[in-house]
């Protein structure tokens, strides 16, 4: 009886107090009670209260009609939207294809709102794309003299931070020429220019950008070595950072000093192409420890390699 008492506390109270039972719909129900017993009557009443017995209410009929009307309008709206969506899709497709200057549509003014909205969306998208392009290291082009000269900025970055920005001003009047630049003088710019400035500008910019980024990486690595690994001295380097001579000390006081020379022949890479180890102790460079270290130096940026070597006890 829990359900009943929960839902109809007043009703249960009515039963328990005895006396006259007052229920909402006497008539037919009362007859049923007389013929089938109190429990079945109560059961009937419970079902009625829970709404399980279909009720024929005129108000309810009105509501059904209303809802039917709502369904009808919603369906109509849906069809309308479907058509609109189709049209938008179509327009978008045509805009994507590039022929968004459809004369007829313009004249009739049809779809003008959607068209404007779509174009704005397209523009925003392109702007974002451009920004993303800059962020991942694209080139900034600025016309300095319309149709004649322009200026390119090449950004360099190392491990997620921007470093130096280099610039080139190019002249297009007759052949493509570099007017001025602030690329380091040791950079083989002339070679790159000869290779593909005339024929393929993006390729030229790409290779130059590779060179510059690799240079920045090498410069930053040297800075990090000087900064983080105190036991290693940078004896020699050059402007291009293509040679790096390091003086390493062993972990023990009496260990001989080691001269590590890194050669970066591939200027577009931040990793060395050749590693030589020299020491007063002739056997040391051929020890398994140092052999391992050599491969490590070839595979890892120099500051990371030295850090690992430090941890594994090869150097102090």
């Amino acid at each position, binding site marked *: 009886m829990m359900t009943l008492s929960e839902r109809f506390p007043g009703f249960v109270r009515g039963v328990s107090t005895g006396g006259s039972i007052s229920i909402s719909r006497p008539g037919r129900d009362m007859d049923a009670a007389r013929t089938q017993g109190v429990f079945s009557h109560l059961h009937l009443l419970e079902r009625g209260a829970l709404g399980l017995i279909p009720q024929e209410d005129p108000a309810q009929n009105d509501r059904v009609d209303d809802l039917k009307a709502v369904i009808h309008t919603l369906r109509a709206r849906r069809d309308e939207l479907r058509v609109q969506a189709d049209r938008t899709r179509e327009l978008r497709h045509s805009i994507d294809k590039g022929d968004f200057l459809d004369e007829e549509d313009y004249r009739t003014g049809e779809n003008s709102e959607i068209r404007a909205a779509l174009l704005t969306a397209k523009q925003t998208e392109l702007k974002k794309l451009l920004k993303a392009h800059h962020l991942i290291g694209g080139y900034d082009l600025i016309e300095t003299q319309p149709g004649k000269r322009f200026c390119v900025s090449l950004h360099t970055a190392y491990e997620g931070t921007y470093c130096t920005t280099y610039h080139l001003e190019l002249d297009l009047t007759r052949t493509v020429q570099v007017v001025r630049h602030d690329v380091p003088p040791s950079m*083989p710019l002339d070679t790159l220019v000869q290779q593909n400035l005339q024929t393929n500008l993006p390729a030229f910019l790409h290779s130059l950008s590779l060179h510059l980024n690799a240079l920045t990486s090498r410069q930053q690595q040297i800075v990090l070595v000087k900064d983080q690994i105190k036991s290693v001295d940078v004896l020699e380097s050059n402007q291009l950072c293509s040679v790096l001579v390091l003086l390493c000390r062993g972990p023990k006081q009496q260990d001989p000093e080691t001269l590590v020379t890194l050669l970066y022949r591939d200027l577009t890479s931040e990793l060395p192409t050749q590693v030589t180890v020299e020491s007063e102790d002739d056997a040391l460079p051929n020890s398994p420890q140092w052999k391992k270290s050599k491969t490590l130096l070839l595979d890892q940026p120099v500051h990371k390699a030295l850090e690992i070597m430090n941890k594994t006890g090869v150097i102090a």
Partner: protein
Amino acid sequence: MDETTRTVLQRVVRKVPATRLREVLRTWGRVPARQLDLLDFSTSKFVLFEDVRSLCEVNSNRLTLKHVCELEMIYFIGNPAQGVWRACHLTEPDDDVMTVELRQFKEQFKARLTELISNVSVKIKKHDDEAVWIRIAWGDHFHRPNQLKPTYVVHHLQTPYVFVYNLSTKHKPLLYQALVLATRHGSMKDSHLSGKSLTSIRDFLMRSYQQAFPTKYARPLQEKNTAPTNPNIEKEHAEQEEKRLQLACEAFGEGNVPRLETATYKLETRYRGSGNETLNNREEPFRALIKFSSANLLVSLNHCVSAGMAETPVTPLLSSITQKGKNYFVITDKGSGNSSQSMVQKK
């Protein structure tokens, strides 16, 4: 101590200002610091030289010419602005040019030069900022090297630039050849750039000064902040002024620019002025030499352009100073046409 060593030491002591002598001697490290402190640097140079000499003789009984040359180099590297430095350019690099390394270069250069000329003394020292300093004292078959007038050469490895001080035309080909071979290049030529300050012409040629380039992004604010002006003063041509400033900075750099003293233009062009019949109809070119000189030429030119005294856009004759890294130009008729007319009035 032999005679030459003595003379060179005397010259160095004489040349170095008394205020810096202690520091130079300390860096040299042949005389203990304690004894240096006892020296009286305020006496005459003659007395001072005798003191230094006796100290040297007491402390290092075999003080040779090599050591004294080193002393001279130490002073010279610290104070390179003493005369005219000329820039040279190595061209036609070999494939393995990037692998030239200091030790190798030293050996090669010395070997090549001694092959070419018998009596020569070469001393090579690497300075902190990646520069290799070479001191050469020249002699010939009959004379020992003259230590009193050495040639100094500064070269940055892996770059095509060489800076030369006090080089006679007689020794020029010898030095050039030795350098070309030691640095693995095909040839070497004059850059037509000279100046009193080595650091300036080096920075100028290597473009390690602040150049202005147009960018899409606004510059940091402090650069644009100008002195507040009275609201009652209005500039009608403010926009043009800004543009001129930008053009001037693009042509001649901004901020701390290298110090160049002169720019020389040698004209070998036909005279095109009107009215002067004798000059107009000459067969030969009209020869003239135009020299701009200033304490800091680039700043002066920048001012001329930004103040509107020189026309904008900047004439290529002036802007090629920075673009080509030269300050000596020969202008012929075939090249950049009209010459004297486009020269601007110089403040």
